[in-house]
């Protein structure tokens, strides 16, 4: 089927069918970014066509009415790939650029919005230039590896009035929206959520390499600010260009702590180091955040990012007095709500009837019972996991892009699920963890630290 000729009314039907939505909760009515039948074609460019840019473009090309007109990347191989994929998917008039300034100048009248998926240190320069040129911007997380640069993005957004969505894509994921808004906030299934834990563990991996036939010459690398190809390919591991795994991976999870409690932290204490690879940025970080709620309660969150073991992979846990929620962007790794089995916790039958969670699987997971284990009355049995009823049958980034394009088309900046000022808050907290590691001390926040 021709992607571009896909009827928008069909799209709405398939979108509704794609997400398993129970009657009680209409995701479509939550303004989470579903396009309507009268939406016009939106002309889009993209700056940065590395792995993340490709993922975003591939997801965006599935959205009806989105037409890519330009791709820009300093690496010819990437720009060629972007142009070729656009052409193959029917975006035949997309042009290829090396310099974003040339792209903005030549495509000025052809672009409504730009996706920025470049290394973190260039986000502010690219996003600000696009907004000043009158384009709405979807920019990958983290906003920047510099708080000053992140601040400039918020200010430019305000000055230009253009929309700026930051790529914390879980904010638009219907599973996460359901879990946070319906399960935790409205139904209060978990009771008070006192703690949160998240981790992202990855196996040992060498630096990325690239066949020399695709290398940039030294003068080009220098012109674009990169010391060599190793720096360009592995920018996440160098302080000049990125913030290491804590910023690259942690930004997604720390953002969830802000979202679930709807407040900012008062401190972060982190330890970690460059203990394995002898690289510039920390290869392992463990951070503890203290959040103070609007009611004055203290909640705590723990985060771990390791790059020398994939043990446990990546997931998030939100732990309350009555139950805990385990989530992960990959459903198989986290999609359940566990009820505390202590006395006094209300039964969840009504929550099942309301469609907040599915009934317990008929055959609960086998419990390893050994005759050698002495029963200890202080140990409560493992809680059963009730599956969440929402499935996302589309690429993980697609709902967030849909949300952005919906807001642009309808001129509704208030519909954005992760506007610049919201993302700035978590950027403050994430970047501070690296500072805490370096100084080996607790960093205390003031409320005004999170405001621009």
């Amino acid at each position, binding site marked *: 089927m021709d992607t571009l000729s896909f009827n928008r009314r069909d799209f709405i039907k398939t979108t509704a069918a794609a997400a398993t939505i129970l009657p009680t909760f209409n995701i479509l009515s939550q303004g989470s970014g579903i396009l309507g039948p009268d939406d016009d074609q939106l002309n889009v460019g993209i700056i940065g066509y590395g792995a993340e840019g490709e993922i975003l473009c*591939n997801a965006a090309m599935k959205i009806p009415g989105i037409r890519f007109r330009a791709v820009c990347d300093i690496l010819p191989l990437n720009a060629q790939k972007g142009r*070729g994929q656009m052409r193959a*998917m029917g975006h035949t008039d997309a042009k290829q650029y090396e310099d974003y300034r040339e792209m903005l100048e030549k495509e000025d009248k052809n672009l409504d919005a730009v996706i920025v998926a470049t290394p973190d240190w260039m986000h502010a320069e690219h996003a600000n230039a696009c907004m000043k040129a009158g384009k709405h911007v979807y920019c990958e997380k983290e906003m920047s590896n510099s708080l000053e640069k992140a601040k400039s993005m918020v200010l430019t957004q305000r000055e230009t009035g253009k929309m700026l969505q930051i790529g914390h894509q879980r904010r638009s994921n219907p599973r996460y929206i359901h879990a946070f808004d319906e399960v935790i906030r409205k139904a209060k299934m978990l009771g008070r959520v006192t703690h949160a834990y998240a981790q992202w563990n990855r196996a040992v991996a060498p630096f*990325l390499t690239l066949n020399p036939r695709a290398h940039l010459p030294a003068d080009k690398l220098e012109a674009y600010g990169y010391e060599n190809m190793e720096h360009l390919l592995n920018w996440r591991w160098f302080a000049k260009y990125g913030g290491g795994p804590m910023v690259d991976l942690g930004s997604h999870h720390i953002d969830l702590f802000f979202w679930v409690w709807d407040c900012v932290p008062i401190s972060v204490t982190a330890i970690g180091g460059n203990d394995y690879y002898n690289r510039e940025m920390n290869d392992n970080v463990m951070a503890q955040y203290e959040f103070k709620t609007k009611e004055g309660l203290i909640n705590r969150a723990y985060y771990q990012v390791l790059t020398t073991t994939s043990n446990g*992979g990546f997931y998030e846990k939100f732990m309350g007095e009555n139950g805990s929620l385990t989530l992960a*962007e990959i459903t198989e790794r986290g999609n359940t709500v566990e009820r505390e089995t202590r006395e006094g916790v209300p039964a969840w039958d009504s929550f099942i009837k309301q469609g907040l969670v599915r009934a317990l699987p008929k055959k609960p997971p086998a419990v390893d019972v050994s005759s050698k284990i002495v029963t200890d009355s202080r140990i409560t049995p493992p809680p059963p996991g009730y599956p969440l009823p929402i499935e996302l049958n589309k690429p993980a980034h697609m709902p967030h892009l849909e949300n952005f394009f919906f807001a642009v088309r309808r001129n509704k900046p208030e519909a954005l699920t992760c506007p610049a000022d919201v993302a700035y808050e978590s950027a403050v907290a994430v970047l501070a963890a690296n500072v805490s590691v370096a100084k080996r001390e607790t960093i205390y926040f003031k409320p005004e630290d999170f405001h621009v």
Partner: protein
Amino acid sequence: MKLKTLTMVVAATGLVITAGAQEKTQIKLVLPKPCFTGTPKDIKKHANFDPHPHDKERPAIEVPAGCDKLLSLNCKVTSSDPDPIIGDLSYITDGDKDHDAATYVELGPGVQWVQIDLGSEKEIHAACVWHYHGEGRVYRAVICQISSDPDFIDGVVTVFNNDFNNYAKFGVGKDKEYLESHFGRPFAVPAVKGRYVRFYSRGNTSNEMNHYTEIEVYGKGG
């Protein structure tokens, strides 16, 4: 397409159908470096998914002695997409199986094929394909056919087919879908004679495109 296809699906056990107590040898694959990068994708596995763990090498394929010669190195490659999105068709037989952004060829969406010309008719005993091992992904409708007709009209033998939905219109295949890895996907071929080896696919679980890093074809030397 006029098709006289003799389907000889071989289970991926590494066993080769041979007669008598023939002396055997093993295909010795030279594996590329493992290179999984980025965030794993949420892959919905089809019921016809191969349970073989993707992080374990498959058992070596046994072939008759003298039939373990690499026949495909630097052989000419043609494709249904003569203008790849990136890369060059020559990468498929250049011996470089390592994954990076410049070592694979990317073909357009839909059912696409690549075809290796072995130069003359050969007796083929095994093949191995590396589509893209930069992340865990599953390629759809992976089919391998052998023929001495460059147009694959006559004398076509299908030696691997995991097209559970008959996307490529060659019939539903009985081989299983599998997760890409640096181990590639080796499979035995029951001494099929042919000059051309053609591989089909129809996109993958990450995007609609079709990729090849390397294909190796093994058989009788000389």
